[in-house]
């Protein structure tokens, strides 16, 4: 029996190779039945399990089939692990034929009959399956045998009979393993004990008959791994049926520990398999992503924080508040139509808010990005919780302009009306801060930064009055003038950070459940909750997350761990602005209930419908697999670069076989050039990052054109320079690729935990880089490959994106620069400093012409 201490792979292998015939058959049968059980057409478990109520003459076969059938893979594996050593010992002792006779006869039927009778007696009908009954029978036998040799085990002076140990195991398993059949095990154990008392010889078929059969059929000669009944004549294993393999196995077994690892390293397959593994990783990663919208992989959302109680309160906003709303709307319209400046608008709004008895303050900010300055003045008001102590606050944001530069014509008056309405309630436990920002991105960002004192005082003014810790924020983006149908919840934060799922669930619950209006996500105005729509929602969400841009006034709150969403009414319907106000009221009442900061639910998720999501544990493996593909390839190329540069497979084979003891010479790796090239690529990448974030807006497009040109001609130039001055070898090209992929894999796997979507997008777009290789002989292949690589260069992808969404390149680049300077989006770092250098190194590899001279030199060295 193998024990843990002496475990080693080669020994385990030899043990497996020496397994006798019946044990093998049982093993295969169990595995076979498990495989059969995978399909869903024929329920093999129902067919073969030992079900007391179904026992009859026609179903007696169940008595023999149930040990082979298992519930699931764990059940099967655990039972296999238990039964193989026991059965192997038994068979080695009694012979294959005896085993066959016993295990298809008395040792199986007696316990099962016992079990069925007891079950019927108890009036129960519990189906059993699995080889564990055998395990206990064999354990009982073993225990009785041990008892004969060594009757007592003395622990602390108490002597414990050794035959009791299986009973201990029986109880432990009954307690610890779920769904284990205590009765079945006990029946097996009982029969084992009885058999062990010496009754086995009455149960077993007569030895002379077996010997006769064996002799007549010449089983020993015909069947491999057969164990003879007559051990006196033929020895324990007959004529050592597995002599070939066992000598080989024992040779390995006697070898040094780790020989197998060495052998594995030298295995020629090691140089073949990794690219396929890598490809498999990419494919599995991509397919995984597309499985997520299925019901089996996504989950329904639920409210995790019990304190929220969304939709449990009556909302009273309405009635004459609508008259007030109309008046405020007149004021706002007047301001919007007169084209007043930001300060004048704030002046008017401040007058109104002050009239409500709220404290107001203003804050100036100036941001410079893409040659433009974004400046403005935030106005905010604090509605102090009537009985509160200024320790916590929730924020209601109404930007004057939304992200599409439309004036928030309904949102601003609605916020004013809500402020007036909220003032009347005395139940607020948290202060309510009303924020009017001139735009949707820079204003809220400046305000939140200053609230947390993380602002640059030279550009963003400090806040004159403050309240407590922010617990949540809701932004209203309500520019459409007519009645609406549903609410669009925008939840993407800067850099792909997301608000707590409980907040979104609360809004969905209040708007959808209580107010009876629809809720849409990710601009999916229609959603039928079928696979295509779910996938589309998820992919849109991933794209937004990957870009990492601020998507609304709420985005800037999320990096400070303040959960926030923007609510956007849309569509043609019958819901009016009061309904929208009631949604906000309901959400605020929920947030007001919070006893602690939102922490219960998920922060990492992909939403695919308003009530369906996948959490990080389910989706992360796909990005990780894609990132792992680069690492696998990098390690593979490193190993390959250490191998001698022989090409014929025959050579490798002979080498591996003949030089078992002496390892093949590892080739010296020339690291200077590859490391230099990779460092150069990484260093150069800072230039586009700096330029695209710092040139003024009008030069962005020319700069991009220039960059595109350089991007196309830089790899050939670099490659030519390399070949002219250094003439790198194939090994060096492999190393260049290895290092650059290693970096890429490292960056992407760490990014996957922060911004899954960005890691996934970059990973998939740079997946071909794993498989590029130099073409020393074919210029045409080189050109085609380079052209294909150019099609997936960052610049080309940017152009394609611009064409697809019908945006100008300038808009995209300006947006990126603004995001970099205002919100602190780091996506451009990933694009220019991670993806682009990897792509550049890949192009250099494709265009490489490995030097012949070096190869010749190597050859002569070898000879």
């Amino acid at each position, binding site marked *: 029996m193998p024990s843990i201490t002496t475990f080693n792979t080669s020994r385990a292998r030899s043990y497996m190779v020496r397994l006798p015939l019946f044990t093998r058959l049982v093993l295969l049968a169990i595995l076979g039945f498990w495989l059969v059980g995978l399909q869903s057409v024929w329920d093999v478990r129902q067919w073969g399990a030992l079900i007391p109520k179904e026992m009859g003459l026609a179903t007696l076969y169940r008595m023999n089939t149930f040990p082979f059938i298992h519930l699931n893979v764990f059940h099967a594996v655990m039972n296999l692990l238990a039964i193989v050593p026991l059965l192997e010992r038994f068979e080695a002792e009694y012979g294959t034929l005896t085993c066959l006779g016993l295990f298809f006869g008395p040792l199986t039927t007696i316990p099962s009959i016992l079990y069925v009778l007891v079950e019927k007696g108890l009036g129960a009908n519990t189906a059993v399956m699995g080889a564990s009954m055998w395990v206990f029978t064999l354990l009982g036998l073993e225990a009785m045998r041990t008892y004969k040799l060594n009757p007592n085990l003395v622990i602390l002076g108490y002597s414990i009979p050794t035959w009791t140990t299986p009973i201990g195991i029986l109880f432990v398993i009954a307690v610890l393993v779920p769904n284990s059949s205590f009765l079945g095990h006990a029946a097996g154990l009982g029969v084992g004990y009885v058999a062990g008392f010496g009754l086995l010889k009455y149960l077993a078929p007569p030895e002379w008959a077996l010997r006769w059969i064996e002799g007549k059929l010449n089983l020993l000669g015909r069947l491999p791994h057969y164990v003879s009944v007559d051990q006196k004549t033929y020895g324990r294993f007959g004529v050592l049926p597995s002599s070939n393999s066992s000598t080989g196995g024992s040779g390995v077994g006697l070898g040094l520990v780790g020989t197998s690892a060495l052998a594995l390293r030298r295995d020629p397959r090691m140089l073949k398999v990794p690219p396929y593994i890598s490809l498999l990783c990419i494919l599995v990663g991509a397919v995984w992503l597309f499985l997520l919208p299925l019901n089996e992989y996504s989950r329904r959302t639920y409210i995790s924080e019990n304190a929220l109680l969304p939709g449990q309160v009556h909302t009273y906003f309405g009635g004459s508040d609508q008259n*007030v709303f109309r*008046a405020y709307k007149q004021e706002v319209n007047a301001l919007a139509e007169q084209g007043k400046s930001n300060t004048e608008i704030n002046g008017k709004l401040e007058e109104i808010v002050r009239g409500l008895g709220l404290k107001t303050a203003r804050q100036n900010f100036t941001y410079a990005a893409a040659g433009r300055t974004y400046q403005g003045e935030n106005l905010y008001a604090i509605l*102090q919780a009537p009985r509160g102590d200024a320790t916590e606050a929730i924020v209601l944001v109404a930007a004057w302009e939304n992200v599409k530069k439309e004036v928030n014509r309904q949102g601003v008056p609605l916020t004013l009306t809500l402020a007036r309405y909220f003032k009347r309630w005395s139940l607020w436990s948290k202060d309510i801060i009303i924020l009017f920002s001139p735009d949707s991105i820079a204003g809220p960002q400046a305000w939140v930064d200053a609230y*947390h*004192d993380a602002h640059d005082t030279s550009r963003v003014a400090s806040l004159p009055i403050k309240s407590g*810790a922010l617990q949540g924020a809701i932004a209203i983006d309500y520019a459409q003038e007519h009645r609406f149908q549903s609410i669009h919840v925008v939840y993407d934060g800067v850099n792909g950070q997301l608000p707590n799922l409980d907040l979104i669930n609360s809004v969905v619950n209040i708007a959808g459940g209580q107010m009876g209006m629809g809720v849409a996500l990710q601009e999916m105005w229609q959603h039928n909750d079928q696979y295509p729509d779910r996938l589309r929602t998820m992919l849109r969400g991933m794209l937004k997350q990957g870009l990492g841009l601020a998507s609304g006034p709420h985005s800037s709150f999320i990096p400070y761990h303040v959960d926030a969403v923007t609510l956007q009414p849309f569509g043609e319907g019958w819901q009016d602005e009061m309904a929208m106000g009631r949604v906000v009221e309901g959400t605020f009442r929920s947030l007001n209930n919070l006893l602690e900061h939102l922490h219960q639910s998920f922060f990492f998720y992909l939403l695919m419908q308003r009530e369906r999501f996948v959490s990080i544990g389910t989706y992360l493996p796909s990005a990780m697999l894609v990132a792992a593909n680069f690492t696998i390839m990098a390690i593979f190329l490193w190993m390959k670069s250490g191998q001698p540069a022989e090409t014929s497979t025959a050579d490798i084979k002979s080498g591996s076989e003949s030089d078992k003891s002496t390892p093949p010479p590892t080739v010296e790796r020339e690291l200077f050039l590859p490391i230099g090239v990779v460092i150069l690529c990484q260093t150069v990448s800072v230039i586009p990052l700096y330029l695209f974030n710092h040139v003024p807006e009008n030069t962005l497009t020319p700069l991009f054109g220039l960059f595109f040109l350089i991007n196309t001609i830089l790899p050939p130039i670099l490659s030519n320079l390399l070949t002219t001055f250094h003439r790198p070898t194939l090994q060096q090209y492999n190393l260049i690729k290895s290092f650059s992929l290693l970096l890429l894999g490292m960056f992407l796997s760490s990014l996957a935990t922060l911004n899954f979507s960005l890691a996934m997008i970059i990973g998939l777009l740079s997946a071909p880089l794993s498989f590029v290789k130099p073409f020393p002989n074919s210029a045409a292949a080189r050109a085609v490959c380079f052209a294909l690589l150019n099609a997936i260069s960052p610049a080309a992808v940017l152009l394609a994106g611009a064409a697809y969404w019908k945006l100008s390149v300038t808009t995209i680049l300006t947006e990126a620069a603004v995001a970099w300077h205002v919100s602190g989006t780091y996506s451009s770092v990933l694009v220019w400093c991670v993806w682009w250098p990897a792509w550049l190194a890949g192009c250099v590899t494709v265009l490489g012409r490995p030097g012949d001279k070096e190869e010749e030199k190597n050859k002569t060295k070898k000879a």
Partner: protein
Amino acid sequence: MRQFLSFFLVSLISFCTLSTCAESPTSSADYHEQLVLRPLPLSALLASFNFRSNITVSEFEAHNFRLFPRSLAQILQHAGTRELHLRFSSGRWDSESWGARPWDGAREGGTGVELWAWLEAETDDEADHKWLTLTNALSGLFCASLNFIDGTRTTRPVMSFQPEGDHPSLTEANTHLLFGVLPHEVVCTENLTPFLKLLPCKGKAGIASLLDGHKLFDSSWQSMAVDVRPICPAGGECVLQIELTIDMVLDIDRSKRPRDNPIPRPPPGHELPCNTSKPYHSHDTCFPADHEASQDWTLSQIFGKHMKGTCPLTDPAVPPVCLQVPNSRSVYVSDGVLEKKNLDRVSRCFEIRPDANFEMVLPSPSKDDQQATSLIVKPEAPLLYAERSFTGHGQERGGVQTILRNPSSDTEVEFIYMESLPWFMRIYLHTMSARIQGTKGDDNSVIQEVYYRPGVDRARGSQLEVRMRIPPASTVFLTYDFEKSILRYTEYPPDANRGFDVAAAVITILNKDEPKTGRFAAYNLRTTSLLCSLPTPDFSMPYNVIIFTSTAIALAFGGMFNIMVRRFVAADEGPELGLKLLKTKLKSRFAALFKKFGVGKAKGDQTKEAEPQPAVTE
């Protein structure tokens, strides 16, 4: 405010000269109560209830308590307390709109519960022991968690507090000032009930009959104070004075809502006060014109009930109710009430017959005198505005910023700023700086003196007292940084983890002419409390981990460890133990018995019996 105060002082002094000083100390004038109502801007109303009684020290020591609450007196005697100040507060005073605080801030505490007392004790240890007795006893008396004021929440202020009473018999050495604060304590009805029981009329008659938990705790700001101090008039016998004060700011709109329908439903459109001058005004469009206007109320609307006469024990010389509105406003009162307008033209008092129910109506002013100035007395500006908030984000470090503004254009303000911080906020004293707005860098002239006692983890909070001076019409930013310690998981309170409340900072503005008036502080104020969030484990996780690891250890590690440390000895080598010993002993006994009785038995039996013997010993 100043007028209000001067009025009050005048009334106090007159009261003193009339009652305490001229008459015998045992007269009925030992108790008086007064309610002062003062409308504030933004439709708020300040109601100050004051109840005061005296007892001579000799009577006190003779346990003849009379009007002094016996329950409290016994506690004070037992704990050796010479002077006691207890505060229950909630909400915040909006000094921007409401101006200076009532009583110059002397009768209020920070959010939660505050307690400070001068104890008579020889040593610090004795003082701590007495403090423990005092807090635990008060905790029971007031149904508050005062017993949680332990060493970590107790400080010994050095500069901020001075005794209010006269302590001729005590010396510096044997008086100890201890100050404890519970910022998280929620003040509620259960604290009001024992408070009312301390009054001679128990809330059944007099102004105390207006006190009602629903109204008191629905107020925007409220503070309940208990002050006990000895007063020794020159030449007279020392008296022990207890003063109970309740101040609250009621929102008139909110208070006027009927109790059975407290939901602020939108009023019908035609009842909405509108600004009709707007060009778009129509039946369905209304620019609201509320908030300033709401200054009409009646006493029963505001407090939900009538005032039931006066307390018969009260000194009739002190009018029970005063109202501070300009004399030009008309006020209607019920029968049997005599209105007396005071000379300062902004206050009037009402004398009430003991058996008459008192009701007062402030009608909404007529159209012509709608100017806000004539409706209410303009509040007086406080000496200092203070606002404190956290800076920074994240769970490792943070900062505290206090903005202190001196509104006066010609006088500078000198004050003591005191913080008692929990031990898990470790402050970096070197980062403390005071910057005057508009200037760069620190201003050395602002901070005069610093007293700092660093905290000790899990034993003592840190205490910071800073004497500062702010020049006229300037704003000072006092900032310092701190580090958040990591708590052990058992140290988190069992409730939902909202964060940890940090007590309000106590600001005591020094009285410049202290020698003349004898008052140490010219004005007191408290900042709001803060909520400090510490790194918090997901509490279900430790339990999962504990259960999981315990199981793993019990199953795997336990057995393995047992085998590793156990010395295995063959059974016949080791001493016989336990059951086996018993078994062999029994066997030998039985064998002996058999021998005794079964002498005549066959020999074969004996040999059979002997046979298992080796198996047993094996």
